């Protein structure tokens, strides 16, 4: 770890202080109270993560037909949320600050909070209450936004969607509730020197769109933005000792009628397997014959060219 020392005679406090006046922020980690930049503007970075069934394995529909069968299913952190944890750590390495990972879910969700702490996050918060169960995306966003208000934030990061039922709404709705801008599906995030705004590259159909958003803001992350680090052994040891703060409905001031299955705007009728594709043809013969046959099939049978 290299820390460029800067000497400052007088260290004024307050958020209106322009960071530029003190030159560039030295790159160091972790947050350092003797560093004027860290001290004056500690970035409060919130990362919202979700535990999801590992989609690489086979999924079965349960007997009731409304949900998947959860027996023997490995659970993982939603891959997009893992990018969010990594990005938060990168921001902290550059600007200093505090990374808090927050997850709503059953007791089991503590696993992914623990693994994020092992990656380097400073604090873990677990939103856990029986009345949260069955909440739709909006109610979930409501719960998360209460947590965000309680914890404070300069920047909020989460995955663009969860790979389970992939609603892709929680981040957007949370930003709406908090009344902060949301830039979705980003592939690059640059924060200005004074930490007043960020420029994010958002995925659009033609390519990328560069968007400037004032902070605080929420960003949802797309695959490709970074490569999540592996937890180091000391990191894992440190994470084991850390206490995960648990917040329930009472602590978040959530009323039972606003969340859970009964408040859901969506009701699931059933799950089904997608229709199977009809068996295809494996072309035979030498390459020339195969190519000729393929062109004939595409023009005459499939009629697609």
């Amino acid at each position, binding site marked *: 770890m290299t820390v460029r020392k800067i000497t400052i005679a007088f260290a004024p406090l307050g958020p209106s202080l322009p960071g530029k006046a003190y030159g560039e922020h030295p790159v160091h980690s972790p947050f350092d109270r003797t560093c004027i930049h860290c001290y004056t503007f500690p970035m409060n970075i919130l990362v919202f993560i979700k535990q999801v069934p590992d989609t690489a394995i086979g999924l079965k529909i349960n007997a009731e037909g409304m949900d998947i069968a959860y027996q023997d299913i490995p659970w993982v952190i939603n891959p997009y949320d893992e990018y969010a944890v990594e990005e938060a750590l990168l921001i902290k390495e550059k600007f200093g600050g505090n990374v808090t990972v927050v997850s709503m879910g059953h007791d089991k969700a503590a696993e992914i909070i623990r693994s994020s702490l092992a990656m380097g996050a400073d604090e873990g918060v677990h939103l856990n209450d029986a009345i949260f169960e069955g909440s739709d995306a909006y109610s979930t966003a409501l719960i998360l936004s209460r947590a965000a208000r309680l914890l404070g934030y300069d920047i909020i990061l989460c995955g663009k969607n969860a790979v389970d039922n992939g609603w892709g*709404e929680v981040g957007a709705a949370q930003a709406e509730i908090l009344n902060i801008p949301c830039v979705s599906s980003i592939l690059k995030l640059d924060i200005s020197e004074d930490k007043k705004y960020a420029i994010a590259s958002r995925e659009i159909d033609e390519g990328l769109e560069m968007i400037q958003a004032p902070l605080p803001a929420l960003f949802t992350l797309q695959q490709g933005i970074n490569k999540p680090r592996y937890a180091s052994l000391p990191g894992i040891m440190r994470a084991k000792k850390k206490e995960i703060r648990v917040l329930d409905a009472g602590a978040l001031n959530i009323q039972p009628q606003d969340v859970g299955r009964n408040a859901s705007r969506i009701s699931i009728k059933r799950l089904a397997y997608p229709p199977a594709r009809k068996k295809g043809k494996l072309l035979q013969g030498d390459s020339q014959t195969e190519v000729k046959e393929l062109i004939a099939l595409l023009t005459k049978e499939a009629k697609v060219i």
Partner: protein
Amino acid sequence: MAGIWIIAERRANAVTEGTLEAIGAGRVVSGNLKTELTTVILGNGPDSLPANCSDAGTDNVYLLDNPLLSQYTSDAYIAALQHLIKLHSPALILIPSTCNGRDLAPKLAGRLKTAYIPDVSQIEFADNEIIFHRPIYGGRLLSQVTCRGEKPWITTLRPRAFEKAGAVKNGARVENHIASLSRDSIRTIVKGIKKTQKGLGLTEADIIVSGGRGMKGAENFKMLEELAGILGGVVGASGAAVDAGWMPHSAQVGQTGKVVSPKLYIACGISGAPQHLAGMSTSKCIVAINKDPEAPILQWADYGIVGDLFEIVPMLIEALNTTT
């Protein structure tokens, strides 16, 4: 039930294919529910009614006009739409599932606190209910859901899942609305656009020629571009090819990239990981060229060739060049 709306997307002076598909889906829904169908176009300028929209079979076209709507920003779009929604209280809003559509729809639903259903692939009617089908777990399962509570319900429609609306000369009633917006209410600034996709977007293309790990290098994608050029298609890539840096992320087909459903999908050197299959398994016709006879993609292909793509693809280019 009050009306069904479609939020149109424009390109030059036409609405996109995805918008025509949404109008097609909307015609079925409004027919079933015996309600009016309205296309909403946001933009700048009074002469902004696209030619292919006026005769697409909607009852109304609302033009929301403001210079601040000339470029998409969610703040401006939502503010303008919120005003119009209050005025007309639609029951259901259909939005094409493009990058901008997927950005706008959940924010709008979040603002209105109403139900949002993304990536709908089929709409069904039963017992006075609208049932939306949507793929979940990367397309490995289909979820069938209904909405309840406050309206409008908001959905995004999966590209190429619905029949495009054919032209009908019914002459939609056109209403001009001036959206009152202030620049201060738009919190984000678009600093620039970097185009990485040439011509048609992947999701709109009829024919896609895709390459995977078997392409062995970025330079070999030229060959696929040539093949796509002859067929009038575009080039896509698997996650492996994008991770290797051979193709831009915008070209990625799969669960974490674009979900496509072209008439013809040619997979070259793609093994067919579940993540990739999730993005293309609804293609009408799939051709797979792979040297590994065990590659899972061959199970999904309508026509499979086990062989060296560096031999097959040039032959295919040559044969197509001589026949056409």
